[in-house]
């Protein structure tokens, strides 16, 4: 059976990607996945060589052919996205429903497939990485997340790999829900700040909403010990285990500047804590 660990945080910048980069070093026989498709960063630590690039198509895009248009205004009247004005479709506002295309009495609206991004299968020093790049100002990040996860699962099956580690996006909306459905275990990375706690609670609510098993890691725990205590209290109350506490350490930035996972960059206290976090995660997965 393929198992998947998904790393989320609610709030951005709590250290998801840096920790996932270290898990890539520590985990054996796994596939790494970057599901933060509109601001992907994991490749900056894992330095992949792209082996296969695939186009990602979102919904179709639509144009009005002014030579055929009878200027009846039907399309503008029907468009719920306020994307049509003066017989022109604003591609940024258009959500691709195609109602204008179907309803135009003069058949003046044309459509074509739209490439919305790319996804890749790559090789890294630590094993395969599946990642993606959403096109500039494109929608449909949730669908791209699904494609990336599907590709990783297929690869795992084919190559008999039993573990997938997924770096998720921030927030609690569309791409997060797409990253979370059907995963084996979620790790929520939080920080001891009022915002970190607020956002962690929302992502924990999301996990219970979808009935997914979850653990918490407190990053930068020594920045504010009182708030760390608060997180521990909340987790106890919710019956959520704390899988690790990581120090507020500039080493995260130093390792990143060198384009290295933290545990490869240093043997210090922070790396020891990340190793123990990984062991706890792995044990929980196999319990």
């Amino acid at each position, binding site marked *: 059976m393929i198992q998947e660990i998904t790393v989320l945080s609610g709030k*951005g*910048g709590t250290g998801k990607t840096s920790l996932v980069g270290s898990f890539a070093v520590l985990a054996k026989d796994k596939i790494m996945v970057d599901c933060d498709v509109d*601001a992907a960063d994991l490749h900056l630590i894992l330095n992949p060589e792209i082996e296969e690039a695939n186009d990602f198509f979102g919904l179709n895009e639509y144009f009005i052919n002014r030579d055929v248009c009878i200027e009846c205004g039907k399309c503008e009247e029907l468009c719920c996205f306020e994307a049509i004005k003066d017989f022109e479709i604003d591609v940024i506002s258009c959500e691709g429903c*195609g109602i204008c295309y179907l309803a135009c009495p003069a058949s003046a609206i044309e459509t074509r497939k739209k490439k919305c991004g790319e996804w890749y299968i790559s090789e890294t020093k630590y094993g395969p990485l599946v990642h993606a790049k959403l096109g500039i100002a494109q929608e449909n990040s949730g669908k791209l997340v699904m494609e990336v996860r599907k590709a990783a699962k297929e690869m795992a099956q084919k190559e008999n790999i039993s573990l997938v580690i997924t770096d998720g996006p921030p927030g609690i*909306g569309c791409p997060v829900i797409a990253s979370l459905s059907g995963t084996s275990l979620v790790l929520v990375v939080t920080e001891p700040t009022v915002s970190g706690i607020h956002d962690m609670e929302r992502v924990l609510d999301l996990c219970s909403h979808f009935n997914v098993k979850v653990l918490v890691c407190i990053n930068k725990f020594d920045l504010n010990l009182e708030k760390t205590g608060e997180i521990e209290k909340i987790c106890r109350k919710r019956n959520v285990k704390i899988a690790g506490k990581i120090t507020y350490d500039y080493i995260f930035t130093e390792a990143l*500047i060198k384009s290295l996972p933290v545990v490869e960059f240093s043997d210090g206290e922070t790396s020891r804590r990340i190793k123990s976090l990984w062991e706890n995660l792995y044990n929980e997965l196999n319990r």
Partner: protein
Amino acid sequence: MIISIASGKGGTGKTTISTNLAFSLAQKGHKIQLLDCDVEEPNAHIFIKPKVELKETTSFVVPQIDEEKCTYCGECVRVCAYNALFVAKDKVMFFPQLCHSCGGCAYFCPEKAIFETNREIGEIEAGSGYSIEFAYGKLNIGEVMSPPLIKRLKKRIDEDKVVIIDAPPGTSCPVIEVVKGSDFCLLVTEPTPFGLNDLKLAVEMLKVLKIPFAVLINRWNEEYFEIDSYCDKENISIVMRIPLERKIAELYSEGVLFSKELLEWQDAFCKLFDSIEGLWK
């Protein structure tokens, strides 16, 4: 003037900048409106501590099928670009999470068997704190679609004030919905390879949207100069640098506006506003 604060990468300090900028300007007598449009994970209210005067739920129009009239012809399924409808022999299934509320199914149903109902997707709270008119949206847990809530929140924009909008991280639909229509966008980044990579994506997005912008480097230090080199090369103004200081991080962790405690920063934020106005004009 409408200024949105965005970033690409999460956790670079968008909320810190938008709340401290709003606070510093309000202290100097400017009329300020602050909208927290990061409806998935709103945080500005933690710092503004508003007295909430209004709460409203936001809903989203979704189809409902009148089983008496439905003939299971499948026309609604055919027109739905989002695969939100599915028809079986004697049943139409609707998946609300996939629906974009385009109204196509109801419009094209030959039996007029589809009518529209409302489904609640989130909540807006409005009020004021520190003489700032403030509003924020909160997406319900499990909801996928944040843009309709963002649109609703942006209807509150009062152009007689200086409007500061806190955006979500990333560069996809919710961010575009937020920054669309802004006069200026301030991009907050940090001096790391992640910060640089995601800054580039945000810059590309703003070029497509044709919104003027400048960069603010948060947690600035002298270890990593690539942001400077990139901005230099691309001719992008760096309008402010906030140093990496534990004191600022600690105040943030407590939910305290750092310019309220470290007073010298109020002038710095007012100067930031002057630079933005200068670049905009």
